[in-house]
């Protein structure tokens, strides 16, 4: 414990060296700016700037890349909230309540709350990283295919019941997402499914294309020529941007719960950030007293997923740095950067390169402080962006979306995908179908399937593997409880009007 604090002091010394601080600052600044651009998320930002770091020393190089990473996450939330453009798919769920609040003229307030939640969650994640790394590394090994299957199934079930309006429509959209998730090469057999002979679909439909299409482009298609500006035109003062005490209070518990969700998922490599934010959102909706208001601009619907995404990001570094095993594509890229620097991430990183490890942890916090300092004054600028007439703002955004989609594989195909999903999304919106479940089904479907088949392969076809393992059994128990509660409440809701009606009749008699 004391050793950790001493080491951390050393890390701060390193991170605050002017030259390291400069690269950390450049990283968060550039990441932030790229993150704000619709269509370009952390992955694009890091892969674009990766060659730049080759000429740097290892410590500043990794500080800069990590800065780009979380900087772009702060930036990504801005596009999602103000323009309904989730350039980083985990932010898609933030659109659900963030954008309605912007439309209601509260864009600045939401951004302020997002920054606070993000900063709080990131700080918490960093503390967890410092003190609980060895413990969490052990947790990572407890999650085999059976456990991952159960947790993904929980995510799918919790998420598919979260949509507003007709539950049937929500489930239909989840199924569409699941089918989309099937597209591509099957990992187990190498067979191509639903690719229609297009080699571009062999790796599946691009996640960024779906997210940008069904949210951003679809919304654009629906509102073009109908909207002059997003939100109100009245000038926003700094006072309007500061969240009120009541709003902060509303955000506090969701922020805390979101942070915990993010921390738990961070400890499980193989669970992506998108499922984390969806679970955080679904949890808020489930325990809310007014679940029907989600999707119309609930503060909890923004604070919880944003907090989850940031604590997950920080905690994700634990398996990446201390095992040398990347949790997702962004982490793989960061590992690649370390390798180029001649540093082998892995179990011995902490003892062989304490400067990298502790410097990085300290720089996380420094970087998050820098982001707060950068972004809070910038909120005003971002909100002003909304005053740009729609007819200029959105074509420009679409242009950046096209660039962002193109850079994923340096291929025009992804741009067509965005367009196709835009049209599909607009159609669904016109028919009043919820679109978020598409993304959820798409992200979770393949994970559920893959882990299920892997677990069955390892158990030689015995279903008992899912209940023999305690963690998996416990999660399955939660699923059953969730379904039972859902059935109970919907049954009671169906019976109650009748009971109420009966009571009225009795009264009249």
């Amino acid at each position, binding site marked *: 414990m004391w050793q950790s604090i001493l080491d951390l002091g050393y890390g701060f010394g390193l991170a605050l060296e002017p030259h390291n601080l400069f690269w950390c600052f450049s990283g968060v600044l550039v990441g932030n700016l790229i993150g704000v651009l619709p269509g370009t998320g952390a992955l694009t930002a890091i*892969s674009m700037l990766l060659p730049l770091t080759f000429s740097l020393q290892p410590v500043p190089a990794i500080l800069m890349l990590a800065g780009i990473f979380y900087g772009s996450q702060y930036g990504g939330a801005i596009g999602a909230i103000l323009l309904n453009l989730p350039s980083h798919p985990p932010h898609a769920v933030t659109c659900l309540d963030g954008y309605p609040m912007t439309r209601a003229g509260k864009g600045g307030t939401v951004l302020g709350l997002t920054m606070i939640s993000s900063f709080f969650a990131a700080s918490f994640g960093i503390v967890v990283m410092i003190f609980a790394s060895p413990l969490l590394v052990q947790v990572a090994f407890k999650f*085999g295919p059976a456990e991952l299957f159960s947790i993904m199934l929980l995510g799918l079930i919790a998420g598919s019941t979260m949509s507003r309006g007709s539950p049937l429509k929500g489930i239909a959209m989840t199924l569409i997402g699941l089918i989309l998730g099937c597209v591509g090469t099957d990992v187990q057999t190498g067979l191509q499914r639903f690719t229609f002979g297009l080699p571009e679909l062999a790796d599946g439909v691009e996640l960024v294309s779906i997210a940008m299409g069904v949210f951003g482009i679809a919304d654009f298609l629906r509102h073009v020529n109908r909207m002059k500006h997003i939100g109100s035109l009245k000038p926003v003062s700094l006072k309007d941007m500061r969240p009120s005490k009541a709003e902060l209070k509303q955000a506090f518990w969701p922020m805390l719960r979101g942070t915990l969700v993010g921390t738990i998922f961070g400890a499980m490599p193989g669970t992506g950030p998108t499922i984390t934010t969806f679970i955080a959102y679904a949890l808020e909706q489930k325990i809310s007293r007014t679940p029907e208001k989600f999707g119309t601009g609930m503060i909890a619907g923004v604070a919880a997923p944003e907090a989850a995404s940031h604590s997950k990001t920080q905690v994700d570094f634990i398996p990446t740095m201390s095992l040398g095993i990347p949790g997702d594509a962004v982490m793989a890229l960061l590992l690649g950067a370390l390798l180029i620097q001649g540093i082998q991430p892995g179990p011995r990183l902490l003892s062989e390169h304490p400067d990298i490890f502790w410097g990085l942890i300290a720089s996380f916090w420094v970087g998050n402080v820098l982001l707060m300092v950068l972004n809070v004054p910038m909120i005003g600028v971002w909100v002003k962006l909304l005053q740009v007439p729609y007819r200029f703002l959105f074509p420009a955004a679409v242009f950046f979306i096209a660039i962002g989609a193109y850079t994923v594989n340096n*291929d025009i195909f992804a741009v067509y995908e965005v367009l196709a999903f835009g049209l599909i999304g607009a159609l669904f919106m016109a028919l009043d179908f919820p679109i978020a479940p598409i993304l959820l089904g798409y992200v979770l479907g393949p994970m559920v399937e893959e882990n299920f088949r*892997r677990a069955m392969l390892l158990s030689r076809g015995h279903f008992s593997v899912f209940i023999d393992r305690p963690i998996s059994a416990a999660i399955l128990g939660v699923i059953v409880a969730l379904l039972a509660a859902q059935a109970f409440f919907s049954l009671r809701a169906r019976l109650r009007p009748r009971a109420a009606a009966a009571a009225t009749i009795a009264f009249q008699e």
Partner: protein
Amino acid sequence: MIRSTLRRALIGAAFGIAALALPAGAQQAYPSRTITVVVPFAAGGPTDTVTRLVAEAMSRDLGQTVVVENVGGAGGTLGAARVAQARPDGYTLLMHHIGMGTTPTLYRRLSYDPVGGFETIGLVTEVPMTIIARKDIPAANLQELAALVRKETTKLNYANAGIGAASHLCGLLLQKAIDAPMTTVPYRGTGPAMTDLIAGTVDLMCDQTTNTTEQIRAGAVKVFAVTTPQRLPSLPDVPTTAEGGLPGMEVTIWHGLYAPKGTPEEIRLRLSRALQVALRAPALIQRFADLGTAPVAQDRATPEAHRAFWQADIAKWRPVIQAAGQYAD
């Protein structure tokens, strides 16, 4: 101030346009502009890393910028297709790995000719692989491991990163050498497979040294052999497969540089020369060593040596893949 900057920019642009227009009139010596090397995998991966190091070193010899473009997808066939269909003028090249040797068999429907569509420039490096197992597996050396596999066969789980991945090919070759099947458990990449191997959920795996060396040194997994003819400087105590009793079980993730079919010979030779110079650079050798590999010998970084090696590799994998009956389409 602003105006003068603007004027300077305009004058510069005018010269730039003039410079662009020039080659049309006068035949200029190759290379006269930026060269693009397509990497058919995502940025940050092992092939991307190797390419960026080589590209940087080559650009110094060629006197032109060599940029790396990642065109990932479909097991590397999308990027390869793009280069096969590119203009054969020496300005679009391909860096590809062992996939060039397996794609002709592994994929039965391709939009390009996976063999005839390319000219070779030279081999670059051969990244070694290691045969590893969970740390408590009851075997002390490769002989005992082979005996264990023969005894337990499909009760043992062999993890790989999906059809066509190097870990898959290495596993096929291992099962052929031992002459006993195991249950193959595919993952999406060797990262999650490694997590399950360390946790003891799966029994065996083959992966490149870049990913395994640290886990081996830390004792998180048990190593049985390196799949190269010689021992590695980074793992001097680990025997080769031949020493361990499985001769011929050699597999490396070899990388080569290609140009589209029809690229003039003098351009290919110029590129080959630049590649050789790049592979001699001490800085590159050091970086390669950090990655657990080394550049190939100078006489292998030539079009002829590369083509001969490539063709032998296609012939080597064809029966193995066909026997397994697993294809990637």
